[in-house]
């Protein structure tokens, strides 16, 4: 297997590769979404305590997974970009941030919708909710720092530093919020003692999680392509591309 991986670290060849990959991943993502939604609405049994309201879990939990996972991936790409000075890695990190922020917001929003019928409150200052909110702040900080810097190379590197500092801080923030919560003992809601889940529910959730994952890949590839075109608009290959499409 002598694949030249470095070939695809050049924006030009990555642009074509991503263009080929996007249709396949889109089909897979749509298929998984349809399957996951079918399982979650028609096959998964009604919960004995929460009746039908629990079904929001099928989007809530995958969104929460993706929000944390994407931050990690973003920090890793940013670190690679900073360490090896590769332009493409930083572009991917930039492309991940809006999707990550979207999933964070989605997790918070669906959590609020779920919390109202279950706990009688849209929002409680639980450790998980609070740390998810702080994660949203970290995404927004990353994006606004990059937006404020005109020079793209400086924006890439500055964003990478703040993404890494944030990644180091995430465990510290999570545990401090957790201990803060146990000290106060305000809302007596326990999220950790969840009842045992039916296998179909778990399957539905995993499939939805996978669907969200593939969806993220598609959106990130599309956004990376857009960033590549914007940054490389003065190069020969982009103008050739425009010439051929006209």
């Amino acid at each position: 297997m002598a694949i030249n991986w470095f070939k695809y670290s050049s924006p030009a060849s990555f642009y074509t590769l991503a263009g080929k990959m996007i249709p396949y991943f889109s089909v897979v993502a749509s298929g998984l979404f349809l399957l996951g939604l079918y399982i979650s609405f028609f096959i998964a049994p009604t919960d004995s305590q929460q009746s039908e309201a629990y079904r929001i879990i099928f989007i809530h939990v995958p969104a929460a997974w993706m929000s944390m996972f994407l931050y990690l991936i973003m920090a890793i790409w940013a670190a690679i970009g900073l360490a090896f000075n590769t332009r493409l890695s930083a572009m991917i990190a930039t492309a991940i941030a809006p999707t990550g922020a979207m999933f964070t917001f989605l997790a918070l929003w669906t959590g609020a919708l779920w919390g109202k019928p279950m706990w009688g409150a849209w929002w409680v200052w639980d450790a998980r909710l609070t740390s998810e909110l702080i994660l949203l702040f970290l995404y927004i900080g990353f994006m606004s720092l990059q937006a404020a810097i005109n020079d793209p190379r400086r924006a890439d590197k500055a964003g990478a530093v703040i993404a890494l500092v944030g990644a180091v801080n995430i465990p510290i923030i999570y545990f401090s919020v957790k201990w803060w919560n146990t000290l106060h003992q305000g809302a007596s809601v326990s999220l950790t003692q969840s009842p045992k889940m039916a296998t179909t529910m778990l399957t539905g959730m995993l499939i939805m999680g996978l669907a969200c994952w593939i969806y993220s890949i598609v959106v990130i590839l599309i956004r990376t392509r857009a960033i590549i075109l914007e940054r490389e608009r003065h190069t020969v290959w982009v103008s050739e591309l425009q010439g051929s499409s006209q």
Partner: protein
Amino acid sequence: MFLWVIQRDLLLAMRRRFDILTTLFFFVIVVSLFPLGIGPEINILRTIAPGVVWVAALLASMLSLGRIFSNDYLDGTLEQMLISPQSLSLLVLGKALAHWLITGIPLILISPLLGIQYNLPLDAILILALSLLLGTPILSLIGAIGAALTLGLRGGGMLVSLLVLPLYIPVLVFGSGAVEASAVGLGAGAHLSLLGAFLLIALVITPWATASALRISME
């Protein structure tokens, strides 16, 4: 060289003494606004006092972050520091510590007075000052990263708050937590130890991050 940076920054701050007082009075005013907004109920004030003082300290420290690098950036001193053979991390550490001496120390010194305003018992006031003593250097150290990243950007001040405030949260939690824990008789030892641990981690990691952020901003 390290001591030279601290000495120089302190000297510069002494030449513009009013800047120090501005930060200090900002702190006092923010803390004094809360009773006016909430009402003079003494029991409520006593329970919220640690949080209020700590949030005000966060804001005061954050608003003065621009001063760490911006003047040196404008007159070119920072560039000379970057090309000097000395370790940039060490210089940056000196600047962060000077920032703490200028903004942190006055806050710590005035905090007992604010504690009395909020009718805190004496031992809680001591814990408050102690937690500020351990916590405010962390604020200066983390804040230096944000200040370095936003150097010379338009709207830098607002941006710094977005970048830095989420990272300040652990300090806020354990700083005000120490005072509350001692108030309910749990003892503040655990919280203060954790603050001390954060301080040590910040001392090791942040100068390095700030130095690389400065190099990026000055390219």
